[in-house]
């Protein structure tokens, strides 16, 4: 059976610019019913019909899970990305009918935690918007440390301070404010779980320090959707379906496979869930692995690829699809 998710027919009910880079989008169901309940940390995959091209990008739900009249996502404009965020910023207006996936949570709270210590960088704040709302509603114990470039780019910083007061600490790069990670991680009560979402460098920094300070791995949670990176075009043979496809510069391998009418399973489209893992039958060239799912051994072996985020350079690539 397919492991994909059920789809939801929605309409864009509001589009709200938040600051110079970030815009918030509100979705309601077209049939007027309530949206499915979700848990803090969940994302939806938004289908973007851009001419004859379909982009499928995951975005964290940032509203309160207690209110399912609408879903909200916040999209940071990426002027050098593959165009998904630009499409959202430029083309998506109130009233537009769109299709999104059911919520999927790959960044779930561990409800055993006696305290939830959250570290956000930049647009990585979005899953914590929902998680803090969920915890606050249930009297949960949390503390959020949020780094942003400047006060004016501190998306939702004021709102979070207003809602949760001193449970939220802000750090601004332009004022050279830094999280004192050593001290923070050394002074937590037993039973604390650590959550980090932000740029790859921040995630690696936090995970590395936590490991060095003896935090058990099962208490350290992170969400890092690697956006697919553009790259040189390449050709691929799909052995099972007997097709040869061309992967464009701004296209992911997964998108090219789908455009050829082949539908591998997927959930995150960001190299973390493992659903679209694909066997390599033969290759002559070099893989550009960008996922967080396969082991280093898998990467070296040349036997597997995650088509949602990884690419290829070389003469030929044959996949078991």
């Amino acid at each position, binding site marked *: *059976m397919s*492991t*994909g*998710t*059920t789809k939801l027919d929605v309409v864009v009910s509001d589009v709200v610019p938040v600051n110079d880079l970030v815009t918030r989008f509100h979705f309601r169901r077209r049939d007027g019913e309530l949206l*499915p*309940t*979700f*848990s803090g*940390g*969940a994302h939806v995959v938004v289908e973007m019909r851009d001419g004859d091209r379909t982009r499928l990008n995951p975005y964290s739900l940032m509203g309160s*899970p207690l209110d399912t009249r609408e879903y909200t996502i916040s999209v940071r404009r990426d002027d050098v990305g593959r165009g998904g965020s630009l499409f959202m910023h430029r083309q998506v207006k109130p009233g537009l009918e769109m299709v999104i996936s*059911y*919520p*999927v*949570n790959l960044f*779930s*709270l*561990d*409800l*055993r935690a006696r305290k939830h210590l959250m570290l956000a960088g930049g647009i990585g704040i979005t899953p914590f918007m929902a998680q803090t709302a*969920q915890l606050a*509603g*249930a009297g949960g114990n949390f503390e959020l440390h949020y780094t942003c470039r400047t006060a004016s780019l501190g998306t939702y910083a004021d709102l979070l301070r207003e809602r949760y007061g001193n449970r939220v600490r802000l750090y601004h790069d332009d004022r050279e404010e830094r999280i004192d990670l050593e001290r923070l991680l050394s002074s937590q009560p037993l039973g604390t779980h650590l959550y980090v979402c932000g740029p790859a460098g921040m995630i690696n920094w936090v995970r590395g320090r936590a490991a060095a300070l003896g935090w058990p791995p*099962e208490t350290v949670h992170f969400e890092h959707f690697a956006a697919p990176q553009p790259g040189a075009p390449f050709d691929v043979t799909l052995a099972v379906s007997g097709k040869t496809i061309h992967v464009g510069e701004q296209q992911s391998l997964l998108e090219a496979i789908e455009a050829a009418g082949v539908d591998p399973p997927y*959930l995150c489209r960001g190299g973390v*869930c493992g*659903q679209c893992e694909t066997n390599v039958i033969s290759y002559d060239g070099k893989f550009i692995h960008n996922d967080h799912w396969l082991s280093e051994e898998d990467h070296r072996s040349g036997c597997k690829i995650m088509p949602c985020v990884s690419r290829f350079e070389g003469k030929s690539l044959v996949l078991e699809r």
Partner: protein
Amino acid sequence: MGITFRKETFRDDFTFKNSPEHIRRFPFPFNEDAYMYAVNIEPHVVGPKGSVLENLIDVDEHYVAEMQDRALVLAEDPLRCQSLPHMTLAGWDLLELLMEQQALGYPEHFTLERDGDRWHWINRPLGIDDTFTFGDTSTLPYGPMEYITRQSQGDFCILDQRDGNLWMDAGMVTTQADWSLDFDIGMNFFEWHAPVPLAHEKGIFVRALKFLTNIQQGKPARRLNWTMTINPRLDTSPENYHKWGPDRATVTPENVGDKVHLRVELQSFWRLPRSNGIVFPIRCYLIKMDELVTQPKWARRLHRVIRDLPEELATYKGLTRYRPTLVEWLSKLDDGSATSPGFGPD
């Protein structure tokens, strides 16, 4: 037209019976004349009218009697219902799921009215009419999981998902085929399946875990499992082995038809929305041999399955002692003719 609920017992005088309509809807688990493990998981979607899949949560003529039996089990042994402290939210998820599904499938028996977090639940067969605040445990007579599973047929395990594994962290288990929630509570998927023979070597549990951790909201899945039980006893728990274990020595050629029951579990798997856990309802259906063999196809097929079952499986399912007697009895109903494909009766 509503269901006519039977007055019957699953202990002492064992008055449990299936009506002719319920015999025909019995979820016979063999679609061919042999049985071996497989990852026989399929989407849990609504099936044909008149089958146990007509609704995703099935309520049948045994509902009231099963709920009375559950109350008796819990009165003797409260540890059949346990929920670790972090599982309360998942309990509310389950309460919502079961109230919604029962009210949807059986509006003449169950009604759910919601006004924000103010909920009104009417369960007519059990004479319950409660108003409570969703999410506030103090407004219910029990915790949310216990409250709703005292009103829902089948056992329920709630699995927490973390660290790439599933953890048996809550459940209501009173109609089980010889396993204990009190023993398994807090175990992970591989730990609680450790006693199952053959399947580990086949890599079945690794594949099954991968599938289950990817179950998505709105896309439940199901599978059937089976064993046999002597007398229509729902509570065949390790805790009560002294009560039902000796029954297996009481099977004679004269009483096979009345005493030996095929026990089928309809297991389903659902992602829970708020807690991101998985609920695993295990719904038990019993049918005595006299009832089952009213369908000649089932009689022929069951004979062949039991006769040819690998020894390890027969031992694990506890059939060893009475298997020869049962096979001999069934063989008289098997003329050797072919059986049609599929599960259903002819």
